[in-house]
């Protein structure tokens, strides 16, 4: 049991990790075919794993409805929405359009999913405004520097700002290309080193907590 839960996953991780690290350096078609096959397998596994997700979703909301916890009505809406969409999808044979005409599945997608997604995305504009208000309050020296540079960048990025403050464009470019780029690159170098180190730790079996439990069993 320990072998199946511990050693075998570590052996598979090591073999696959080393193989696909080497794959990066091999341009041969055999190597390309291997990576394509693995990508296909990952898609297949993801497809089957969706059943796990659906089972979890149904279970969590079934419990809520059964126990009538506060807000259980939302769980009913979820059941109705999901089962309704699946039924309409089967009815329309999974097609959103047939001979140029919109099917009921297409209609549901275009007039419920798309507007709902658009609504969530558009809320972002208001959230950015409130977050910016909080960030730009000049409470400290650092926040004051942030506020000043943000005002300059905002002026330099819109035609009216450039008209009113002609030098704002050049200063904006300098802020973005020199200061901003330097900091971003420093972060990216750190991120890359961290990602490589974590990958090596996983491939070599040093970091194994993602398997669950402690590290040195």
């Amino acid at each position: 049991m320990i072998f199946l839960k511990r050693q075998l996953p570590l052996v598979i991780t090591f073999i696959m990790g080393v193989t696909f690290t080497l794959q990066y350096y091999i341009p041969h078609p055999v190597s390309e075919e291997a990576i394509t096959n693995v990508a296909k397998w990952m898609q297949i596994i993801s497809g089957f794993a969706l059943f796990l997700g659906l089972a979890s979703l149904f279970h969590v909301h079934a419990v809520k409805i059964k126990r009538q916890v506060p807000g259980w009505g939302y769980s009913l809406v979820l059941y109705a929405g999901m089962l309704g969409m699946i039924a309409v999808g089967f009815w329309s044979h999974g097609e959103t359009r047939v001979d140029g005409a919109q099917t009921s599945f297409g209609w549901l997608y275009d007039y419920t999913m798309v507007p709902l997604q658009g609504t969530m995305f558009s809320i972002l504009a208001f959230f950015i405004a409130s977050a910016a208000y909080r960030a730009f309050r000049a409470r400290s020296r650092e926040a004051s520097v942030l506020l000043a540079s943000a005002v300059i960048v905002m002026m330099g990025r819109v035609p009216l700002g450039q008209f009113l403050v002609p030098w704002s464009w050049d200063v904006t470019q300098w802020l973005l290309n020199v200061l901003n780029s330097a900091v971003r690159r420093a972060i990216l170098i750190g991120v890359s080193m961290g990602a490589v180190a974590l990958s090596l730790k996983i491939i070599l079996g040093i970091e194994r907590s993602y398997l669950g439990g402690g590290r040195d069993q």
Partner: protein
Amino acid sequence: MNVVAFLCLLFFSGVAFAAPPSLAPPEGFRVLDTPNDTGKSLSLVWKASPSDSKNRSIQVWAAESPHAAFKKVAEFPSNTRYVKAGDFPWWAQPAGKGEHYVKLSSSQAFPIEDGKSYAVKLLVRDGEQEAWSEIAEGRPAPNFFNTAQVNNLVFVLAFTGVLLASIAAARRNPHIYLRRIAGLDAVEEAIGRSTEMGRPILYLTGAGDMSEVPTIAATVILGEVAKKVAHYDTSLKVPHRDPIVMAVCQEIVKEAYVEAGRPDAYKEDSNFFITSDQFSYTAAVDGIMLREKPAANFFMGSYFAESLLLTETGASTGAIQIAGTDSDHQLPFFVTTCDYTLIGEELYAASAYLSREPVLVGTLRGQDFGKAFIMSVLVLGTALATIGVVAGTENFDYVLDFFKDFK
């Protein structure tokens, strides 16, 4: 009079009968198997000419054999397609600097298969004049090793060696200094606060799947958080966007409860799937935040446009928020709306920092050696490139090429 007429006749006849200088075909034309490829392309190389100009064009004609019908596959001005510094590393150059180089890739119009021989010739055109090169033949073949990336492989092996040496050193001397990371020190405080308030802890693992490093880092931190949650007997909620990540996290949380000596307190429903759709997931998590008002929110892993929608909602509920991401484009939103943010590499250092295991802490020292090396290369490379430009020499390219990324 006769003399004048004779001279006129001589002069004008000279003008009328002098042929324009004949167009020379490209010199040194050869067809090579493209190095470091899949065997689906050919490399064409020929010498640069002083008469190359934008008005003079080069046409590439190819066929499956010298006797088959040739097909035009490319055309470009003759003063283009030179080999420039930085195109190839010095140890894997198919053509010399200043020579013309064209990679003829397989296409629908002219498919190229490995192991088959092809004939290629060039046509130089300048106005009405034309000149054909000799026919050159080449056979593409796939390669088992990309020699242009040998420097990359050397660095990977060297970095692996440094990491292993750092781990060995950490085993011998486990007292390694770690700088304070406020966001990780606050984990205990956040869990304690949730316990006092009797509210749950919300933990998100980001938008990525299990093949992404930030997601793995997020699941590793979840294990450490879950141990403390089990110890404090607080409620943990982990909504997921990916079913595989959910399955992995279920196992991690379960084992964490066992390790904390509280297997009875583990709830199977603490990890649950919502949807893989970005904004549907965001709406559902925002709903959880507003209805259940968790006292602590953790945002670990990679994020996209949903980051601000999640964290701003969390901030409005008064929860203590700790974020950790390598998505540099989302960092400003996290810094603005969260109490603590683990920036980039701090996310990957979190498991070592929280567990304090010498083996994991040792890898952080290895990373620091790697960063010191990169910083030295940046300084040295900038100095050499500047001196090279000022002195007008390309000799430093032999050193600089070693630190470039070639495909």
